[in-house]
């Protein structure tokens, strides 16, 4: 018995040892976000020093998965602030009622089109355009013109060239699916996808897998067309060692070929530090953070006054044309769309 007793006391002592560690921490702000969330570390440190607080980040999966976690922990939130609800999931987030309103004064500098939640529970922070990217060298070598519209993708010349993400597991995938619904209508989009399947579209689970696993310009893959963002060409230039004059990839931004994704942040209901959370949101909408967003997350800042870095003004594009589905319509359709899409494309 002596041996087991020793082990028991050791464990008990171990548990006691952990307690003071947890108690000694000062004020903490917990920020929950999706996996692609990044911020300039120096800016975060500055925020911590100004407000005498420690900021902890909790990455909770992709856009949809992170939000689902937040909804599941409703009332006893795992964090104080949430970043990364996008316009496709906005309806679910608002219906679950997990956010506190915060009408930040800085919203004045945000264009009306981005302020999709009139109740100010979700504040727009950044936006990016989901669209097709192509490998310039690949198309030039074969003297093939890149597609100009979604309908072009059905042409035999583009057979087996496109890789997309599963809309059930990836937010750009869902954005692209919504673009096809906006372009071909709720009656026509499935026929388009049937055609795409017949023309050899490849479906993968995540953006990383599509872009870094199959896109010819960024991997050993064999797909010169990929669903990505209109700002991805800027990322190609920014991250390359040689800083080329021209990006090796280009985005297709013609009207009706993409989807504008807006990312929101909000204060989680039930937080113990609502004042700090509000300060954090204002800080995110203010110029220093807004101006760092392009190179941190490769999205456009929501604040109109934020200056863009040169690599962005030269290489990143925005979608032409307006329109698309309203957030309410998207919310109503999302699940049916995913089910139908899965039936037509994957089975």
């Amino acid at each position, binding site marked *: 018995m002596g041996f087991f007793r020793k082990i028991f006391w050791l464990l008990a002592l171990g548990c006691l040892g952990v307690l003071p560690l947890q108690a000694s921490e000062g004020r903490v702000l917990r920020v929950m976000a999706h996996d692609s969330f990044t911020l300039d570390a120096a800016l975060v440190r500055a925020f911590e020093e100004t407000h005498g607080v420690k900021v902890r980040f909790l990455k909770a999966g*992709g856009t949809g998965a992170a939000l689902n*976690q937040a909804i599941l922990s409703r009332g006893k939130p795992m964090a104080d602030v949430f970043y990364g609800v996008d316009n496709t999931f906005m309806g679910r987030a608002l219906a679950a009622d997990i956010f506190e309103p915060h009408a930040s004064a800085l919203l004045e500098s945000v264009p009306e089109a981005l302020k999709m939640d009139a109740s100010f529970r979700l504040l727009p922070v950044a936006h990016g355009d989901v669209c097709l990217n192509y490998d310039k060298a690949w198309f030039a070598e074969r003297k093939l013109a890149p597609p100009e519209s979604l309908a072009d993708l059905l042409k035999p010349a583009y057979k087996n060239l496109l890789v997309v993400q599963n809309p059930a597991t990836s937010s750009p995938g869902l954005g692209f699916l919504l673009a096809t619904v906006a372009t071909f209508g709720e009656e026509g989009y499935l026929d388009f996808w049937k055609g795409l399947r017949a023309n050899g579209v490849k479906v*993968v689970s995540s953006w990383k897998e599509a872009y870094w696993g199959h896109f010819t310009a960024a991997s050993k893959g064999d797909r010169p067309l990929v669903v990505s963002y209109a700002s991805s060409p800027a990322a190609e230039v920014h991250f390359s060692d040689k800083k080329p004059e021209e990006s090796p990839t280009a985005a297709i931004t013609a009207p009706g070929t993409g989807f504008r994704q807006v990312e929101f942040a909000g204060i989680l209901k039930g937080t113990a530090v609502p004042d700090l959370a509000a300060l954090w949101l204002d800080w995110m909408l203010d110029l220093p953070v807004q101006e760092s967003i392009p190179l941190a997350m490769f999205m456009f800042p929501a604040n109109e006054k934020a200056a863009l870095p040169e690599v962005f003004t030269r290489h990143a594009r925005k979608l032409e044309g307006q329109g698309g589905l309203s957030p309410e319509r998207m919310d109503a359709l999302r699940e049916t769309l995913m089910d139908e899409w899965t039936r037509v494309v994957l089975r």
Partner: protein
Amino acid sequence: MDPGGTPVKRAFVVKGFLFLLPALFLAYVYFYPLICIGSLGFRGLEAGDPRLFRFLGSGDLFRILGFTFWQALLSTFFTLVIALPGAWAWARCSFPGRNLFALLASLPFVLPAVVVAAAFLSLLGPSGLFADFSRFLWGRPLFLEDSLMLVILAHGFFNYAVVFRIVGGFWARIPESVWEAARVLGAGNVKGLMHVALPLLAPALFSASLLVFLFCFSSFGVILMLGGPAMNTLETEIYRRAVHLFQLPVAALLACVQLALNFMVIAVQGRLERRFRTTMAFSGGRQRQGGGRRSRLAGTLALVSGFLIALPLLAMATASLRVGMPGPLARTPHFSGRWGMVFFWYPLLRPWATPFSLPWGPWAWGWAWASARPFFFLAGIPVSGL
């Protein structure tokens, strides 16, 4: 010592207390969420959740169930085919490196599923060793991606040790005199195998097969990573419904179906286990033969099996070195993306399951291992997604 004396009594109290700890732990972190989640599914049924009924009406349930059975069956068969020669060689013959071979054969089972999947992708995947090799030889890369074949290969690799240990361990205890008697009575190698070895080994074979079947039936990481977005088993469907589609009632109902099926397989396995124990009347001890043709054959079998087992692991080792290289290879998403997620929780559960259920025999181990995952997952323990 006096049987009613105080030291014994105290020992009982302490033991009872020790058992109370895991019992309370299990009740809180396992049964409590399990009941909550089970009721979620049934409440959905009662309340007429439209998503639940759309799912039930679509026939998807039977399609998914059918496929789950099918892949588990194929995987079990494949595992038996690749593992039995090695088990025979180890159990019945002596050859140099026999212990090393046993060690190598058991290695895959203690690896996390993520590592197994990573190993197979770095061997047979689009940017794997075999693709490079075939490009060099024939100018065309040959690889497997998002395929049932890849899943079955990985399952076979993963469960090699189960068959090897159970069947091999049983086989080693059968005295050589049984075969000698068969030979004296005129049975050749084939006849000896069919009429003597197989009937004697039957309980062990069934028991191992059922265990492998159970593992493959509830396989998650391997299917998710090697099967591609189109492949759906019960387990991955639970995950997709819960995390990505947020249809918790559907996920909960599927989890109940999964649990019921697991219980069934485990009940059968437990029964066989008992029979297996009664047949284990053989003495044990060394029954191995050395020297001559038989030893050479066994050595060759072990060498080939060992090489096949080592191959994916070696491929992964070289791939991990290649990631550090400049150029496009450096950016292959080897341990990012969907793998990062499984890393987060998968290795966490296996070490949990093992110590808690060791005293309850392998079936309990299998049960905890196989059925805990969807429930832990639904309980929100893993906070990461694809």
